[in-house]
C-alpha cells in the first residue's frame, strides 16, 4: 500500500515537473528557439520546429503522467528527453561551449551554475527511471 502510494507520488511529481518546465517555453517559443540554437547541435532548419515541439511534448507527457494516462509511454519519452538534454549539455561542456540550459525558464538571468544543472538533470533522470520501471511493472 505505502509502496503504491510512493510510486504514485513519484509519478505525479515527475509529471508535474515537466508540466511546469514546459509552460514558459510554450509562452516564449522565440526565446526557447534561441536557446536550442545556442546549443549548436541541430542543423539550423531543425531548430525552430524542435523548439516548438519539445515544450508541447513535455506538457503532453507531463500531464499524461500526472493523470496516469498512458503512463509508460509518457515516462519513456520524458526519460528519453532527459537523457538527450543531459547528453547535449555534457557534449557542449566537453567542447567548451558555454550554453544556457533553458531547462525551466527561457530567461538566462534565472540560470545557475553548470554543476547544478547536471546534478539536477541526473537526479530527475533517476526519478524518471524509477517511475518508468514501476509503470512497466504495473503494465496491464
Amino acid at each position, binding site marked *: 500500500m505505502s509502496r503504491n502510494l510512493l510510486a504514485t507520488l513519484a509519478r505525479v511529481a515527475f509529471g508535474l515537473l515537466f508540466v511546469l518546465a514546459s509552460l514558459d517555453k510554450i509562452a516564449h*517559443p522565440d526565446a526557447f528557439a534561441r536557446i536550442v540554437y545556442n546549443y549548436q547541435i541541430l542543423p*539550423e532548419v531543425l531548430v525552430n520546429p524542435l523548439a516548438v515541439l519539445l515544450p508541447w511534448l513535455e506538457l*503532453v507527457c507531463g500531464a499524461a503522467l500526472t493523470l496516469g494516462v498512458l503512463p509508460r509511454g509518457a515516462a519513456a519519452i520524458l526519460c528519453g528527453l532527459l537523457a538527450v538534454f543531459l547528453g547535449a549539455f555534457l557534449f557542449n561542456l566537453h567542447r567548451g561551449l558555454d550554453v544556457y540550459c533553458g531547462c525551466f525558464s527561457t530567461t538566462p538571468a534565472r540560470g545557475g551554475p553548470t554543476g547544478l544543472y547536471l546534478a539536477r538533470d541526473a537526479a530527475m533522470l533517476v526519478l524518471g527511471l524509477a517511475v518508468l520501471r514501476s509503470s512497466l511493472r504495473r503494465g496491464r
Partner: protein
Amino acid sequence: MPALSSYYNTIREAAVLLLVSILAAGLANTFGPSRIPWASHIQAEKGRELAATGMGDVPPQEAMRIWRDKAALFVDAREAEFYRQGHIPGAVNVSIDPLGEDIMDQAKKLPKDRLLVVYCSDIACPKSKELADSLKQLGFGQLRVMVEGLEGWVKAGGPVEGRP
C-alpha cells in the same frame, strides 16, 4: 522483469503521445498568440540586433591586428571556468554569471578611456552582446564586439593562453 508485451505497449503509448504533441505544437504555432517561423530566423536577427546597438563587429583578422598593436583591451564574457581553460592573451574576464560577481563590480577593473573588444565562445553565443550592452549602460563608450568569438579567433590563427 516486465513482459515483452509491456515494452510493445510502451512504444505504442509513446507514439500516441508523440502524435498528440506534434498536433498540439502544430496548432499552437499556426493559430496561437506567440508563433515563430518554422524556418530558423535567429542568425539574421542576431545580425540586425548588433547593428541596432551601434556597436560594430570586429572580424577576427582585424581583432588580431588590434591585439598586436595593443590598441584595445579584450574582454572575455564567458564563465570563469571557460576563461581559465583558454582565452585571448591579456583578456580580462567579465562573466555574466547570475550567481557570480556583479557586473558593476567586475566592470570597475575596466578602463573607460580605452577601446574594449568583447567576445564569447562563438558566433551563436549571446554573452558578448549582452555584456557589451550592459557595459554601454554603465558608461563605457568605446565598445566593439568580436561576433565570431574565440572560435573565430582560433580559426584565424590567434593565440590562446590558459590551461587546456
